[in-house]
């Protein structure tokens, strides 16, 4: 009798597992295995992300940040190990459209207006026209681009395009948002503005975010946890709990902010040695 777990224990164990948004165990990625151009992009990765977390991935170029994000998105399969999203295999989560994505290039479709770009995922999910238009209006309001609803992407600035891409990623209220250097191409002022927008959206919608960046201040400002990655093969070097709480204009001048910036920078130096 005693070896059989009680009903309660079994249930709580199951809940413990399923309350994780991302659960990566022993995942590795080798590109072109067995060929002369074989690349060991990721060593064994273990990572758990809970609901409502804001995770940033930071590390030297080529350390596998984008690869890790693609594994979570199930755009590529792991070479070994498992990747679970919302308690199911990442592949299933992708088919269930559990996450939204945004990349460094906005990746908007020139042939669609701003409205139709944001609508695209909703169209694919079979939303009715009325429901789509209502949601797009809300989204445009959120990213403050309502006047540009019928413009085409090429008529917008880079920052505005990136806001459209974020509105598109959020349009169907995914529980998980995966972002690969989404603000990398923006100037510093727009970038800080977009960071505040993103935090506001994150708080309002209670989504979980995984965010790749090259910028230490950005990682510290945004994240609840910053994950510092090391190269060859890509791995997690250290995890730094940040969480500056409510962020506003003065946060960037706060000593607590600088302490964390130093902490992340020190971790990165070690990795790059």
């Amino acid at each position: 009798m005693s070896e059989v777990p009680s009903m309660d224990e079994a249930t709580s164990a199951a809940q413990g597992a399923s309350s994780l948004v991302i659960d990566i165990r022993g995942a590795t990625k080798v590109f072109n295995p067995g060929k002369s151009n074989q690349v060991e992009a990721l060593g064994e990765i273990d990572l758990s992300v809970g609901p409502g977390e804001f995770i940033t991935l930071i590390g030297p170029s080529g350390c596998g940040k984008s690869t890790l994000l693609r594994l979570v998105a199930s755009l590529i399969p792991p070479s070994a190990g498992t990747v679970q999203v919302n308690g199911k295999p990442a592949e299933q989560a992708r088919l269930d459209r559990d996450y939204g994505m945004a990349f460094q290039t906005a990746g908007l479709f020139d042939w669609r207006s701003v409205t139709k770009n944001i609508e695209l995922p909703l169209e694919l999910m079979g939303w009715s026209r009325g429901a789509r238009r209502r949601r797009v209006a809300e989204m445009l309001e959120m990213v403050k681009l309502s006047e540009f609803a019928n413009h085409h992407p090429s008529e917008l600035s880079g920052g505005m395009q990136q806001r459209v891409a974020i509105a598109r990623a959020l349009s169907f209220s995914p529980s998980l948002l995966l972002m690969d250097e989404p603000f990398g191409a923006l100037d510093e002022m727009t970038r800080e503005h977009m960071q505040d927008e993103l935090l506001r959206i994150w708080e309002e919608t209670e989504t979980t975010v995984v965010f790749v960046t090259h910028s230490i201040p950005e990682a510290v400002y945004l994240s609840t946890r910053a994950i510092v990655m090391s190269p060859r093969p890509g791995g997690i070097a250290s995890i730094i709990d940040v969480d500056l709480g409510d962020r506003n204009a003065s946060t960037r001048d706060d000593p607590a902010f600088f302490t964390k910036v130093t902490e992340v920078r020190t971790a990165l130096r070690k990795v790059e040695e």
Partner: protein
Amino acid sequence: MNALKGFSAPIVTGVVLLGLWEGVLALLDPKGFVLPAPSEIVGALIDNWDAVFQGARITGFVAVSGLIAGIILGILAALLVTRFRTANETITPLAVAVNAIPIIALAPIFNNWFGLTSPRSNQAIVVALVFFPIFINTTRGLSQVDRSQIELMESYAASRSRITREVRIPNAMPFFFTALKLAASLAVIAAIVAEYFGGRQDALGPMITQSAGLTRYDDAWAAVLAGTAIGAVLYFAVIVLERVAMPWNSLVRNPK
């Protein structure tokens, strides 16, 4: 109409050039058979209007029907090649090999296959010439897609055919229209040159060779003018079609 914008400059240029041509010939007064003046060509065109018009109809039909068939085949092949690996491995080398043949040189041979006075051989030449640029450019447009756009569609669990429709085809449109502008002129050239070797005898091609053979150069030029008109109409139609099919493209090229 928005689609017609930007045509005034070439029209003015054309009128000025014609004026120069006429004026220089009037001043220097060389023998008329070397190069007839525009007024003489127009005169010959009016005198032979029925025959030239009939010739233009026949040649125009060969060019347009061949062009359309070449476009359809080129697009179908491009879609097949981008969709199926085996199709790519068989069709692409074949198309490249066929393109290395000087197709126009096949005209007398095609005449044997289809009958000396049948327009079919001429249509076949047009199709063969139009196919390649359409096929190559459309294939390039279908496959040279921003990787993040494809990944985005995959992240929405979009099907392959949906990705083709939403991303690959719109992406291929500018490539396709670039090829189509080339192919439209090529179709008329191919039709007339093919007609030199056979097909219907009242088409523009035979009209040019026969008039030139009889040193009636103004008649020959009238037929060339009719061929030019067909080419110009086709090119113009392609440009209008391009603007209608891709209203976003002018924004991309001239951002405000």
